[in-house]
């Protein structure tokens, strides 16, 4: 794998899509500003960490659409042939797409979010009272790791579906989540039939009700420490790996 080749591929993507990216950045600023305006106008209706909500909506919406713009060439035969014929390995093509849609995208997204958030807090006079957005409290940064998995799923969808790949990927992601959750609930009920499970999260924790009290059960710290790297690191790597294989085997 050549770093020069990856640099050339990233630069190619930027130069070819520069106009679209600039418009998308302006749109993102507008969207974030609109959401902040919305929560400010209806501040009595929203409670809790509303900034976190805005952050996540912006991250997953813009990140999903941006990731889906990688390998967009495969939705058209002649463009797909052009991409496959660029003298770079499939691995270099995937690595450049992943770097663009994770590292570079996150850097740009975080900068834009903090810029809009700072403007919002200053304009509404909340800068001193509330303090700026901190993504490292209460494990909120784990959503960034979740974004990597989401990125892997969208990239895989992009190379798997020829037309309307973003919509199809989203349908598969939502359906997959529902199926996983149902199976998780089903297996919980099968393993512990006497408990009334009120909520659960696959590979993480569940909550049940006993004597009018909610009891939260989660994996022991040592097991969690084993599961976390798998979930947050190996899952995106696995998804990017399948994307690489799909491109390697791509026929047009």
């Amino acid at each position, binding site marked *: 794998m050549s770093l020069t*080749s990856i640099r*050339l591929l990233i*630069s*190619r993507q930027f*130069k*070819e*899509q520069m*106009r679209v990216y600039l418009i998308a950045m302006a749109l993102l600023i507008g969207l974030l500003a609109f959401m902040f305006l919305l929560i400010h106008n209806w501040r009595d209706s929203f409670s809790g960490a509303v900034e976190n909500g805005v952050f996540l909506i912006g991250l997953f919406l813009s990140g999903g659409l941006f990731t889906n713009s990688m390998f967009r*060439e495969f939705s*058209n*035969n*002649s*463009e797909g*042939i*052009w991409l*496959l*014929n*660029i*003298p*770079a*390995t*499939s691995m270099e093509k995937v690595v450049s797409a992943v770097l663009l849609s994770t590292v570079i995208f996150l850097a740009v997204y975080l900068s834009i979010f903090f810029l809009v958030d700072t403007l919002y807090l200053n304009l509404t006079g909340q800068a001193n009272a509330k303090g700026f957005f901190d993504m490292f409290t209460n494990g909120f940064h784990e959503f960034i790791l979740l974004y990597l998995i989401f990125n892997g799923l969208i990239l895989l969808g992009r190379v798997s579906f020829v037309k309307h790949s973003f919509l199809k990927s989203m349908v598969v992601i939502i359906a997959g989540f529902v199926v996983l959750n149902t199976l998780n609930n089903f297996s919980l009920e099968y393993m512990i039939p006497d408990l009334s499970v009120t909520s659960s999260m696959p590979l993480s924790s569940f909550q049940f009700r006993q004597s009018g009290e909610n009891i939260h059960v989660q994996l022991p710290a040592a097991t969690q420490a084993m599961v976390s790297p798998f979930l947050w690191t190996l899952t995106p790597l696995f998804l990017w790996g399948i994307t690489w294989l799909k491109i*390697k*085997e791509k*026929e*047009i």
Partner: protein
Amino acid sequence: MISIHQLNYRYSRKREILSCLDLEMPAGKIYGLLGKNGAGKSTLIRNIAGMLFPTKGNCKVMDYEPKQRQIDFLKELFFIPEECFLPNLTISQFIDIYTPYYPRFDRQQYQDYLKQFAIDPKQHLQALSFGQKKKAMIGFALAANTRLLIMDEPTNGLDIPSKVLFRNMITEAMSAERLVLITSHQVRDLDELITDLIIMDHGEILLHETKEDISGKLLFELTEEPSQSSELLYEEKQANGWAQILKNPMGISRPVDVELLFNAMLSSRETINTALSTQPQPELI
């Protein structure tokens, strides 16, 4: 340079596109791959370019297996599909982005081609007409100086002066190390250009000969009346008379009428192939 052995390609269990193809194509030649629509030309060249993978058999290009799409193989290949894609860039930006991928790319050569095609390098690629896009891409492909150049229906969308220019450019850009493979169903466009002829139909190779060999073994004539000759292999009525293919036992050298031969291969394959497999007598002085 291209070696194909027992190549099969099917899109599905029921739909076989190529069956048991054998082809040897050395470098230094311009091959014309001719066939009707749906004959399997595009499928064959996509197998050679590594865009499709053979269902059975082998395809080797410059000792590479195209389906591996190795970087050194891709650096030596330029493939222009029928509907070529050009990115959203100006020609100058296009050159800056894509030339680093082709080690032997000659910028001056490309500038000269653009000049010949009357295309302004400052123009935006998306603003070019279909024919101009094709010309910009053909010029880039030639200037990339790859060892293998594959073009699918390159003359579609080119006006008559551009077709002439295209033929001249290809001829000038040829070298002993280079192989140019062109598909077309517009046979006349390639008539003067190609050195070797491959005719395909229903996924099979009907003919693979050099034009020189064909001209030594077959005689192409145009007469006002139908031929009564015992040497006649094929004839058809044309607007200006009767076009005929006759046996050429004396090895008289005449230009090959590729379109006539193409029609003859589709209707009288066995007769033509038998005549081509017979050794002609040396031409009498």
